[in-house]
């Protein structure tokens, strides 16, 4: 860059950089969403199991 007279074309690097800037947080947010969905499913399942158990206990 010492004897540079024109502005270099570095647009490709900028695009790669911003793919990283948006890609990584989106992957992280996607991961959070996926984990939350699985945990909510687990909560529902566990509640159902508990309810079943309570009903069986009453029958006995």
């Amino acid at each position, binding site marked *: 860059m010492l004897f540079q007279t024109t502005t270099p074309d570095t647009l490709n690097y900028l695009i790669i950089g911003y793919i*990283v800037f948006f890609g990584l947080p989106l992957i992280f947010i996607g991961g959070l969403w996926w984990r939350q969905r699985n945990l909510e499913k687990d909560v529902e399942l566990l509640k159902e199991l508990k309810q079943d158990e309570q009903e069986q206990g009453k029958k006995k």
Partner: protein
Amino acid sequence: MKSDRYLQALNVFTGLLMVIATGLVFLYAPRERTMGEVQRIFYFHVPSWWVGAIALFVTLVAGIAYLRTRDRKWDVLALASVEIGLVFITMGTITGAVWACPIWNTCWTWDPRLTTATITWLAYVAYLMLRSGITNPDQRARFAAVYGIVAFISVPITYYSTILLRSIHPVVFGPNNPAAKGTGDPLTPTMLQTFFFCLFTFTVLYADLLWNRIRLERLTERVEQLKARLLSA
């Protein structure tokens, strides 16, 4: 729940800030003369490291608070903050390498800043590995708190590496930057406005992600409690 509504409002606000910040970076800030378009990486690169440092500092504080109180909430905060901090310092490191490709003519060099940044990254990856290797929750929280406190040493070392050691990494702010010494061009007002807006946006993004991550951890705890109750019945 009231807190859920606040969180949703924060999610929307953060999204809006990100859109504005991106608009400022591409439409408002001028193109830098010697580096060209790639200089725009700076507006998100520095805030990434800023947030990374805040996140790891929060882990340090949470670690100290956990050791003093033995309250699980501090351990949850420390874990959430490390995860987010790692995302941001990974972003900062990769985009720094992308910027360096055309500017330094090499994507990576074992310069003091890059070396200390890599050490910081590895130290916090090891934090997560340590946690996953311990099954006892109390022991895990205690070990992680101590490790989180010790590992934080790498953060100021990374920051001061460009000031105290010979480094090719640019120094944009502070008394050591070329503009302050009169050997380089300072950032223009529009560049500075864009930069500080991005810094604010990333700080809000960190708070938003932290809240979401803590909420997820609470849900995990609820599942564990339900499982324990079901097994004990």
